[in-house]
């Protein structure tokens, strides 16, 4: 109890009492909340548009912009550390960097990741060189830019941040649809007349401005984390852009507040701690996010019942239909953990493939149909394997693996190649092709079984025993080692004659199947 209340109390004390007593701390708090808000919003677009490397480039090029802006203000107007001058300089150098990266990667064979790497380090270094060459004019603390200093934010900095926040948020709110569309489908955007290039540059400008504010808090190197971590975290949780932006802002705030507080407590640099916490939040969410998290994925995989297990269960029940199947009996025949088998049975019952009556598990009509389809695939595979010369004792095992290939086309192909066999190598009946053998369907005579009747609707080659369109057929037993189809031509109730067909001929006659009885 006490241990839970005490940190809360001290956090409250720190947040309210200490800050109220020290105006410069309030400024730090305000700065942090403002900066993380805009960073998180823009960060969402950076995450979705996969331009985080570009954000990195922007932040580094900023140093040159700051020094340049400082120099210009100092030399032309003799003003020290003019916030607006440095802001404009940063934005200008940011946009210049992005433009030159785009230009060079379009015009040369060097791909854009390499171009980004070359350009931004170059411009960053240029900033450093300028700062040290003109160190008598430029009082920029490079170290401060590299690691940030939230406690050293001036009033003019804060005003500048407020302006940036207003501009950026207004842009994102007004152009929300355009931003969404160019991030999602640029061609569609262009096709309805959205000025894709303009919106791109406006977003880049916003990113540059946001980076400038972010650098105040965490420094050039870490600003990318401040930008991207909240958006990336929210991306793992949200299925709508609007929600993602709101959630990102919340993560931005919590990352800042927790990080800032911890930095006080541990007496470390606030910038570093804020980014550490933001990254920690991301990893935590990556682990536990309900849909896109690591654990959720793992759980789904564990819960998922393998197709093979389901098919084996159906097969086992079908093969022992004259006995009564129980979960225990099934578990004895399938090598699988019994709890998984029980789960599979539950799932099959839900899909109305199985019905459970006390302990007894039986197939529903639908389940039997499915099981018979598997059995047909199994026995056809066995026949096929025997055809290939696979040893008798291996037939069952290998067919057992192959029966899970029961794609309709594959099974039809096997059946046809084998000449539509009636029995498998062990002498068991191969179930008929009930996928196609549906009364009213037009099918080849070759797939019919004894007792089927139908009316000829097409004869695909000439002169087959005088068979013509419109005749009624009844299929008799197969002859000559099941190689010859015997059909009886009927006229009403009376027999007109008997015709013997080989496989090719039986394939060439299409009948409309009637109900057998």
């Amino acid at each position, binding site marked *: 109890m006490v241990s839970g209340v005490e940190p809360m109390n001290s956090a409250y004390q720190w947040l309210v009492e200490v800050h109220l007593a020290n105006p410069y701390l309030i400024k730090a708090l305000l700065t942090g909340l403002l900066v993380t808000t805009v960073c998180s919003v823009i960060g969402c677009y950076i995450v*979705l548009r996969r331009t985080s490397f570009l954000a990195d480039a922007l932040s580094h090029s900023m140093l040159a912009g700051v020094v340049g802006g400082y120099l210009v203000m100092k030399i032309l107007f003799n003003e020290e550390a003019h916030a607006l001058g440095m802001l404009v300089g940063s934005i200008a150098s940011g946009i210049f960097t992005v433009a030159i990266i785009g230009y060079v990667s379009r015009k040369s064979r060097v791909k854009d990741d390499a171009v980004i790497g070359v350009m931004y380090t170059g411009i960053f270094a240029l900033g450093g060189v300028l700062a040290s060459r003109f160190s008598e004019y430029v009082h920029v603390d490079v170290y401060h830019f590299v690691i940030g200093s939230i406690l050293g934010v001036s009033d003019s900095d804060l005003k500048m941040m407020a302006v940036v926040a207003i501009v950026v948020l207004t842009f994102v709110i*007004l*152009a929300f*649809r*355009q931003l*969404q*569309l160019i*991030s*999602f*489908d640029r*061609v*569609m955007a*262009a*096709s*309805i*007349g*959205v000025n894709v290039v303009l919106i791109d540059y406006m977003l880049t400008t916003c990113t540059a401005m946001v980076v400038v504010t972010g650098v105040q808090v965490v420094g050039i190197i870490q600003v990318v984390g401040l930008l991207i971590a909240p958006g990336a975290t929210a*991306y793992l949780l*949200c*299925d*709508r*852009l609007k*929600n*993602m932006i709101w959630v990102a802002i919340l993560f931005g705030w919590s990352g800042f507040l927790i990080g800032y507080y911890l930095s006080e407590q541990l007496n470390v640099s606030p910038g570093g701690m804020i980014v550490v916490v933001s990254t920690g939040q991301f990893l935590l969410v990556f682990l536990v996010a309900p849909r896109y998290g690591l654990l959720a994925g793992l759980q789904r995989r564990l819960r998922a019942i393998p197709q093979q297990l389901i098919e084996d269960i159906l097969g086992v029940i079908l093969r022992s239909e004259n006995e009564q199947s129980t979960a225990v009996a099934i578990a004895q025949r399938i090598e699988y953990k019994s709890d998984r088998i029980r789960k599979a049975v539950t799932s099959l019952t839900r899909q109305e493939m199985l019905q459970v009556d006390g302990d007894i598990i039986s197939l529903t009509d639908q389940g039997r149909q499915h099981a018979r389809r598997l059995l047909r695939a199994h026995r056809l595979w066995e026949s096929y394997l025997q055809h290939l010369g696979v040893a008798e004792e291996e037939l069952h095992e290998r067919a057992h693996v192959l029966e899970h290939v029961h794609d309709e*086309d594959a099974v*039809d*192909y096997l059946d*046809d*190649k084998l*000449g539509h066999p009636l029995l498998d190598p062990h002498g068991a009946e191969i179930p008929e092709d009930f996928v*196609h053998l549906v009364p009213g*369907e*037009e*099918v*080849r005579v*070759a*797939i019919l079984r004894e007792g089927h009747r139908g009316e000829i609707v*097409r004869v*695909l080659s000439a002169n087959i025993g005088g068979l013509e369109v419109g005749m009624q057929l009844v299929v008799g037993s197969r002859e000559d080692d099941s190689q010859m189809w015997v059909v009886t031509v009927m006229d009403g109730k009376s027999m007109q004659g008997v015709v013997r067909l*080989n*496989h*090719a001929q039986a*394939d060439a006659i*299409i009948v409309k199947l009637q109900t057998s009885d």
Partner: protein
Amino acid sequence: MSISKDTKRQWGKSQIPAIEVRNLTVSYGPVPALLDVSLSIDPGQLVGVIGPNGSGKSTLLKALLGFVKPDFGDVELFGEDADKAKGRVAYVPQRGSVDWDFPVTVGEVALMGRYGKQPWWRDMSAEDREIADYALEQVRMSEFRNRQIGQLSGGQQQRVFMARAIAQGSEILLLDEPFAGVDAATERAILDVLETTREAGRTLVVVHHDLTTADDYFDSLILLKQRLYAHGTPEQVLHPELLSEVYEGKLRVFSHLPTAAQPADGQRGRANE
């Protein structure tokens, strides 16, 4: 000036072509991407565009969208210049180019079809939302309205983008390889969507790669390789000599080209050797 749907339908009846391309020549640098292409497509047709890689298929789509400035010639859609008719033609992107992880729902994608109808500062109107909802109903995707697009099957994903095109109110739909990289069942499902859209009177122009299915899927075919090699019924266009000329013998799969009558019972029985 906007043209009402009724007027357009009347035009359709009086046989003003949906798409009229005259002497279109487009080049990027010294090599022409399209050379003197003239063709005319009637409304309510499902048209396939075929040709080898780099034959100008996507340039033709871009020209129909009004994206490219032709060196010569022009493109008219229902009698109106293509670059003035922005938004009149709906573009359905290639599946591979869509970010299916993007945080956007089925309903939001359909609503995108209405984005061009409102200025950027104004909210979407209730009417826009109704039209988008109705488009989803037409492709039977209403119940998935709140689903994120990545959680749909391939056929459903295609239907969402068809709904977006329908919501756009476009009479002409351009599809960039809708069948690329999908399994047979999905291909069938997508074709169903295309056929229903055509039956609703819309004109579909589809870039297609698979010559073996081209004769089954389309009312007419356009065979391109910079120049227009053929435009007509599949039987006229899928002529082995013509194809081997265009594909320069790089084509081996001719087995399925229309020859003898085939049984229509949907079976794949092979004749016994």
